[in-house]
């Protein structure tokens, strides 16, 4: 089976710059570059990850362990300092639901805008529009401006757009806690259905019980290093201890 994602020994260093103005940079240069203008922080150290097509992988770890950074490298939002990332097929991130929503536009406009942002074509959105609205349970409010939506409605519509983009690789970052419990169950069922259809899933979540239901493989990260890579149950029990 071919790999859907190939991450080969990538490293990423963040520069924590304190200044945002040319003035301070010039002062620093004039003073003979004394002191450090910036602090460095290693978010990922020599991380490799091969994911086969159709695998369901959970990235686990405490806050600041580099899970989200790794996900951003796979989606292409960030580029590694060293090493390489390759992906096969269309990758879509269900990253931060509703990032592309504009509060002053109607639900309908937002479905089109967000769908296009996530890489759908006009034809695809037209075809799936009814399915998106139906899944979101928004109903008649679809032509209301999104700023009048309750937070649950907002998230439901955004999630619904995201799951209907139908890419080969899904990246999911902390968004499974969407809406009330019935809708949450619906979301999880939908994600499980995607996995059964052979989509590749990479999930970041702190909800360990949930992750162990969806994913088969767990990758445990700590301070930018891969600590463990194997069956999900073992990864979860390692993290819990």
């Amino acid at each position, binding site marked *: 089976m071919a790999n859907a994602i190939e991450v080969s020994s990538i490293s990423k260093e963040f520069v924590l710059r304190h200044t945002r103005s040319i003035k301070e940079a010039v002062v620093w240069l004039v003073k003979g570059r004394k002191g450090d203008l910036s602090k460095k922080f290693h978010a990922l150290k020599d991380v490799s990850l091969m994911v086969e097509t*159709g695998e369901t992988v959970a990235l686990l770890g405490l806050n600041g362990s580099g899970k989200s950074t790794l996900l951003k490298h796979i989606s292409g939002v960030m580029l590694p300092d060293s090493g390489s990332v390759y992906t096969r097929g269309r990758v879509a991130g269900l990253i931060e639901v509703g990032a592309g929503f504009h509060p002053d536009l109607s639900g309908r406009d937002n479905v089109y805008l967000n769908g296009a942002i996530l890489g759908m074509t006009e034809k695809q959105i037209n075809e799936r529009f009814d399915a998106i609205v139906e899944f979101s349970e928004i109903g008649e409010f679809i032509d209301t401006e999104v700023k009048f939506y309750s937070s649950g409605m907002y998230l439901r519509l955004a999630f619904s757009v995201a799951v209907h983009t139908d890419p080969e690789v899904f990246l999911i970052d902390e968004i499974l806690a969407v809406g009330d419990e019935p809708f949450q169950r619906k979301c999880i069922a939908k994600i499980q259905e995607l996995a059964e259809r052979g989509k590749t899933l990479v999930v970041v979540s702190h909800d360990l019980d949930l992750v162990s239901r969806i994913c088969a493989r767990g990758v445990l990260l700590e301070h930018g290093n891969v600590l463990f890579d194997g069956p999900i149950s073992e990864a979860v029990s390692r993290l819990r201890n």
Partner: protein
Amino acid sequence: MTTTISGELTRPGLGGGFRDLRQSSFLLKLLVRKELKVRYRGSVLGLLWSYVKPGVQFVVFYVALGVFLGLERSAKNPDGLSNYAVYLFSGIVLINFFSEALGNAARSIVNNGNLIKKIYLPRELFPVASVWVSAVHFFPQLVVLVIGCLFAGWHPDVFQLLAAVGGFAIVGFLATGLGLLFGAANVYFRDSENLVDMLLMVATWASPVMYSWTMVESKLGPAFFAVYQANPITVGVELFHYAFWYPTTDGSAAMPPNLFSLWLPIGLAISLVVLALGQLTFRRLEGRFAQEL
């Protein structure tokens, strides 16, 4: 489990520059439409503001410069410019387009930071959409200009209309190029947008919008006048004068020498070089947008 393996392995996050724009034309269209819808939200006059603002600006400049400072030709002031109102407005609409396009493009990346940090999409879309939106706002002003010209006895030939298209293209390319450059720089240093504000103030006065090019030539002499002429905005404004103002006069006013044989190609070339440089800089800097925003 059956899966179809589609496509080759590709590296995510490496943009294809302007090639991406063609593939994302639908998204570009939606972004432009969003900006247009959101711009005048909750205002009573709505899109009418696109007429009112330049209209007031025009009246202020016309009274202050044309009447008080005596740039308008009249019985008492035979040295002035005939049809100064048309002269002034044809320059103002172009400068307004440039100011709005560059000002918004320079802020577009930072303003859309939330999206750029989370989802990968061709980031050139944002500055380009800003320029596009400005072009849409330019259109009603152009309509007002044409109506004004018709009242002043406008009778252009095809060549003069082509000159307008050329002037618009030069300024559009320049605004896009500078927008990409300053938009990318703004992510690293927010000073960039203040620099742009300053630049726009200078741009209004560094081209013959309010005054006539002959005044510049007589003060600067031929060498510095050539420098003045090399500014693509100057060329654009002069082309607009040629297209809209010149056909309303008796034809006795002089156009800048070599406008078509020399300055039009130079203006276009400089704009395209700026566009290429802007695109190059943008591509070099965009890889780190997500972590710097």
